[in-house]
């Protein structure tokens, strides 16, 4: 099978959905050619579809996110790019008070089929306002779906699902995955929400991750093998909806649970998974649950400090090893 990058996979999903449905359009800052997006994800699209449907906006996150919600209420399928998840602070209301609640507040009359594409994560010395991981903030809001693809295959298939979905979707990419290559078929496919992927089967511990932490977890699992520990690595793929069945049956099989998370530890999504394990698999746990998360600090600029803050393969490996 051919291999393409995560960036190219997202670009293909956007192009294919725009060809398929004239109601799909893109709105965001600096999307159009020749610039083609801050992370070049939308390169070529304004050339193919024109600058009406690949709509460059002023630097106005509140305005563009609200306009995307309004267009979705009028029946269009906007894909709004918020350049960094950190900038959703400027348009939080459009996402959490408008998109998330309009279907509910209208008693089911009005649908809001909007996708907010954004990217998060550290690893580039981007410092405290360009490197956060905010999935838990959005997962906390009823009405939003929250998706976090870790591979080019999932990025393409889940973005197509997101665009066709009639609920609002937070589609969270990772800035350090854009250049990662993976197998993506040429033919049409979609990937459903709410199905976690077991990236590596194992019998001794359930190790849960998403986005960039998936690769770290797999590397850690490799190292653990040498210590005789057979880890099962689960990539959540979407956190709302969450595939509780896959998580819980894995815990019942392995008896141990560790969660790797790039976001800060306090009130992160790892805590939600830990609670579910308590509620649904308490009797199967042979050790306390372990969270491997960022420190409860902002993300620092200096590479050495950033490395200290963010989980990596080594930290996951040693944390898991301590559980045995």
């Amino acid at each position, binding site marked *: 099978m051919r291999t393409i990058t995560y960036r190219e996979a997202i670009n293909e999903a956007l192009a294919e959905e725009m060809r398929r449905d004239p109601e799909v*359009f893109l*709105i965001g800052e600096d999307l159009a050619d020749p610039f083609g997006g801050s992370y070049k994800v939308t390169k070529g699209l304004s050339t193919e579809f024109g600058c*009406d*449907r690949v*709509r460059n*906006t*002023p630097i*106005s996150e*509140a*305005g*563009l*996110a*609200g*306009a*995307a*919600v*309004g*267009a*979705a*209420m*009028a*029946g*269009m399928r*906007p894909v709004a790019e918020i350049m960094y998840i950190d900038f959703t602070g400027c348009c939080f*209301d*459009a996402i959490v*008070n*408008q998109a998330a609640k*309009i*279907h*509910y*507040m*209208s*008693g*089911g*009359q*009005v*649908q809001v089929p909007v996708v907010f594409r954004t990217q998060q994560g550290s690893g580039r010395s981007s410092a405290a306002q360009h490197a956060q991981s905010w999935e838990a903030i959005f997962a906390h809001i*009823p*009405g939003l*779906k929250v998706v976090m693809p870790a591979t080019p295959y999932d990025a393409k298939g889940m973005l197509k699902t997101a665009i066709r979905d*009639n*609920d609002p979707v937070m589609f969270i990419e990772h800035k350090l995955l854009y250049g990662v290559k993976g197998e993506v078929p040429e033919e049409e496919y979609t990937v459903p929400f*709410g199905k976690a992927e077991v990236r590596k089967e194992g019998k001794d511990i359930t190790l849960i991750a998403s986005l960039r932490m998936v690769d770290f977890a797999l590397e850690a699992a490799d190292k653990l093998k040498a210590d005789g520990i057979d880890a099962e690595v689960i990539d959540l793929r979407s956190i*709302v*909806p*969450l595939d509780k069945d896959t998580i819980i049956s894995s815990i019942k099989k392995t008896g141990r649970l560790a969660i790797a998370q790039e976001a800060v530890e306090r009130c992160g999504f790892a805590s939600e998974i830990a609670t579910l394990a308590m509620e649904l698999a308490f009797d199967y746990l042979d050790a306390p649950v372990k969270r491997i998360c960022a420190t409860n600090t902002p993300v620092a600029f200096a590479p050495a400090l950033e490395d200290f803050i963010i989980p990596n393969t080594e930290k996951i490996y040693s944390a898991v090893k301590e559980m045995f």
Partner: protein
Amino acid sequence: MKSFKGIPKSVLTDMYTQMEKIRQFELKSVDLYQVGELPGFLHSCLGQEAAAVGVVAALKETDYIVTTHRGHGHVIAKGAELNRMMAELYAKEDGYCRGKGGSMHIMDRTKNILGANGIVGQGTTLATGAGLAAQLRGTDQVSVAFFGDGAQNEGFFHESMNMASIWNLPVIFACENNMYAESTCQTYHMRPDDIAERAKGYGVTSYIADGNDVIDVYLKACEAVKQCRNGDGPVLIESKTYRWLGHYVGDPGVYRPDGEVALWKSDEKEPMHQFREQMIKNEIFTKSELDKIQNDVADMIISAVEFGRNSKPLPPESALEDVYIEGLL
């Protein structure tokens, strides 16, 4: 009052009927709220009837509106059913939002009423998006954002005006300047005297209307609609009006100078009185014709209250519906 020459009698009839519906719906809901029949908040638009009706009378059914926490008038003018509105205020099953919205969130998707909204100013971005949808689809629809003088100090308004302007969107920014942002008077909360001034900075056409003269508002809205349908939008209309009650029912409005409310309720300023007097004087309507409209509306209000009261209570577990389209996640 501006000349109504050339406006068909059917339009004038509709304007008066809508103003009566709003006035009587508001008076009744305030009463019901004060005796404890309705839960939640109530933000009355009493006194602002002409500003709502004048704009909506210039629209087609397919045009979009987005309104505010003080939105009963706009949605009534756009054709929302009084029965379902009242049932929503009663938090009953037949309410527009099936008890999930209440006074601040009444929507009717079938009439392109994209909803009242509880976040001050955000309606301007939503209306801008609906206007963008109309432009992308190549329809001749216009999208109207109703908002108050308070909302135009929100960033939402400024970002929306700028985007609508650079893209020539068919959006009407319909500001009802009722002189108070909650308790803060306009002379304190902004430097220029007129909100219409704001439009200049964005290269947007603006009009100032006497918001208590439905004809003045209507004529300016017709101009605005024409510009928008011709691809020359957006347009800002500032309707200068007055909120009779406090910010919410129960706010005594102690921040207003003595005599101000009485002045705005006087025959000279009060929108319904002005309209009736001119219509009778110019022999467009007889007094009995207008009285009949008023009485017919009174009957509608009685029926709406009956309907709301008698609508079934909502099963508590219906709280779990409509979070997502296909059930709870």
